[in-house]
């Protein structure tokens, strides 16, 4: 590398900044804010409806009647997906704060990715194959 060179031209700087932005993490940063703000509404609503109401969240009949609405199904498919994305992106964010060998980092990333995909699939399966008439 030429260490005597002190300055870079404008075009060199533009090229450098663009080639870096490809892996700058900025899209993930924005997605974390956007999904987070969506989840504030979804999660707090979910809590008031399901967990703090002593009856509605734990009753099969009420669950079945809610799941008969395609709107409810659609919102909950999205809720599971963006909730899982936001959570696992957060975990990966924490992991990345610690120094580790690339192979260890890639392995942790793989575990996070596979676990996320499996559990989103389990959640979607629950909603989409739910049969209210099953005894």
């Amino acid at each position, binding site marked *: 590398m030429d260490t005597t060179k002190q300055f870079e031209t404008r075009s060199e700087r533009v090229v450098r900044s663009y080639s870096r932005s490809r892996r700058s993490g900025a899209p993930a940063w924005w997605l974390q*804010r956007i999904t*987070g*703000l969506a*989840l*504030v509404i979804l*999660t*707090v609503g979910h*809590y008031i409806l399901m*967990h*703090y*109401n*002593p*009856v509605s969240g*734990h*009753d*099969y009949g009420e*669950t079945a009647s809610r799941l008969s609405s395609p709107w409810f199904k659609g919102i909950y498919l999205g809720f*599971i997906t963006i*909730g*899982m994305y936001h*959570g*696992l992106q*957060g*975990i990966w964010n*924490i992991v990345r704060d610690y120094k580790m060998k690339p192979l260890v980092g890639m392995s942790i990333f793989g575990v996070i990715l596979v*676990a996320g995909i499996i*559990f989103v699939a*389990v*959640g979607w*399966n*629950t909603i989409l*194959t*739910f*049969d209210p008439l*099953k*005894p």
Partner: protein
Amino acid sequence: MSYTPYREPFSAWNKLILAYRRHSGSWAYILHRLTGIGLVAYLFIHIWALSSLTHGRAAFAEEMKTFTTPPFKVGEWLLGALVMFHAFNGIRIAVVDLANGAKYHKKLLGAVWVTGVAVVVLMFFLIFSTDLFAK
């Protein structure tokens, strides 16, 4: 004679903990991470547990019998504290990052605590309403 550097006891842990300087914003940062990890762990259990919906009414009712016992209800209420802190502090993060919140982030943190505690206390009465006010 060789020089032995002075090592503080538990220096690794000291480093890890002191890396998060002990100011209010840093406590919010630590708590945001810890509540985030807790919520992701809960999300996995939650998706797995609710997949019993596909096993029919009897299996679901049997499971809910366990989940409506007092220890689980207390756990559900405390889980709400994690959710409320993470949600309100998440709004604070968004305001600091995307608006001019850096100038009043301590006041925002105060608001996070006041609203969070108020909501969690209110939710105590909602979640235990059937136990507290039953005739």
